[in-house]
């Protein structure tokens, strides 16, 4: 890339900064949701961006954004990206911050170049390549910020350990919430077995009310847990099977081959009966809810 293009941009920005800024802001203003808060923020960001861009472009090297002179620009874009992500902008809206500079900038370039078509083409090419790179950088950073959020949430989910609670002497309950993958199954299994040893429980109720879908894999994981508990001498009851899930299980041809109940209450009652206890209605002591 010939040297003169590297110098054309900063000169242009210097000369027409106000005009460029106005054109740029009006471009952004016309692009969907826009509040007064956006206006002032964007204005200061845009002013700083132009200053940074001019500084960096003076030093040349339009191709390499990782170069030292672009550090200020990168930092500013990261700030813009982060601020827009936090305010709920979409990736396109965030990238638009950079891309909307194109139109006013190109208009200026056209005015400056006059009849020199060759120079104009070369200028526009250099500018568009640079702005594309900057725009992509913004999007990339936006993505990265979002991924960090997702990774943090994932870790938090895993940390929300799957609790094993004792409902009665000899009866444990495992309320499962969220999708069962092999990693979580392992954690659930270990927790349950340890609790079985600790409490000497003979019945464990696995409640899947909070499991959004049960496919063959999830069913297999459930059965593994049931088998392991059985090897430790504890019977399992699966509860919280929603109507939709009951249908799915049958359609998939999954054989649960475990005692299952629709609700945790039913499962608990069955468990009580198995350990030789009944629930008595004290106002009406002859009838028990089991009958």
């Amino acid at each position: 890339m010939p040297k003169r293009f590297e110098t054309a941009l900063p000169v242009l920005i210097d000369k027409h900064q106000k005009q460029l800024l106005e054109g740029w802001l009006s471009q952004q203003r016309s692009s969907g949701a826009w509040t007064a808060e956006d206006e002032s923020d964007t204005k200061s960001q845009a002013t700083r961006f132009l200053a940074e861009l001019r500084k960096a472009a003076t030093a040349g090297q339009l191709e390499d954004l990782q170069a030292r002179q672009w550090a200020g620009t990168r930092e500013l874009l990261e700030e813009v990206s982060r601020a827009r992500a936090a305010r709920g902008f979409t990736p396109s809206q965030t990238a638009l911050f950079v891309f909307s500079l194109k139109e006013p900038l190109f208009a200026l370039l056209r005015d400056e170049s006059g009849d020199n078509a060759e120079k104009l083409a070369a200028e526009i090419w250099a500018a568009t390549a640079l702005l594309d790179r900057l725009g992509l950088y913004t999007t990339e950073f936006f993505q990265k910020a979002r991924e960090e959020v997702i990774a943090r949430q994932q870790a938090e989910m895993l940390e929300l350990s799957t609790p094993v609670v004792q409902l009665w002497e000899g009866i444990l309950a495992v309320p499962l919430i969220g999708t069962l993958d092999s990693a979580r199954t392992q954690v659930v299994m270990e927790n349950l077995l340890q609790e079985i040893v600790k409490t000497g429980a003979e019945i464990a109720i696995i409640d899947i009310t909070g499991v959004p879908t049960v496919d063959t894999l999830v069913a297999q994981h459930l059965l593994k847990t049931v088998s392991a508990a059985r090897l430790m001498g504890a019977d399992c009851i699966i509860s919280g099977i929603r109507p939709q899930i009951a249908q799915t299980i049958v359609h998939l041809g999954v054989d649960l081959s475990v005692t299952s109940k629709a609700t945790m209450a039913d499962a608990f009652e069955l468990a009580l009966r198995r350990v030789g206890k009944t629930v008595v209605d004290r106002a009406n002591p002859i009838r028990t809810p089991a009958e």
Partner: protein
Amino acid sequence: MEQIPILKIGDCLLVSIQVDMHDRLAMALQDDLTAKIVASRARGVMIDISALEVVDSFIGRMLNNIAAMSRVLDAVTVVVGMQPAVAITLVELGLALTGVRTALNVDKGLALIRRLIDGEEDELDRRKG
């Protein structure tokens, strides 16, 4: 040669496996146990594996075999005291030991055998009556 002791408690036999099992020992145990069930007219067999930290498919199969043999001789088999890690390993190996009854410890194992035997007798009484 080392030998696994078989203890008699009432009409139950208690086998506590505390050493590493290998083919010959397993064969010897099956011989001894079947002979003892017949000789003592035992109705229940309890196998305690609480001392085993590692259970492989060989031992898994042996437990299944012993349970099947005892069933032929009309005795119920209960495996007791399995470690959590062992249970997870067996499940991952696909050995759910479906033919074997299990209990958490010797206490609960004895109670289970009692229940199973009594259950069978109740069943008989009901059919007669």
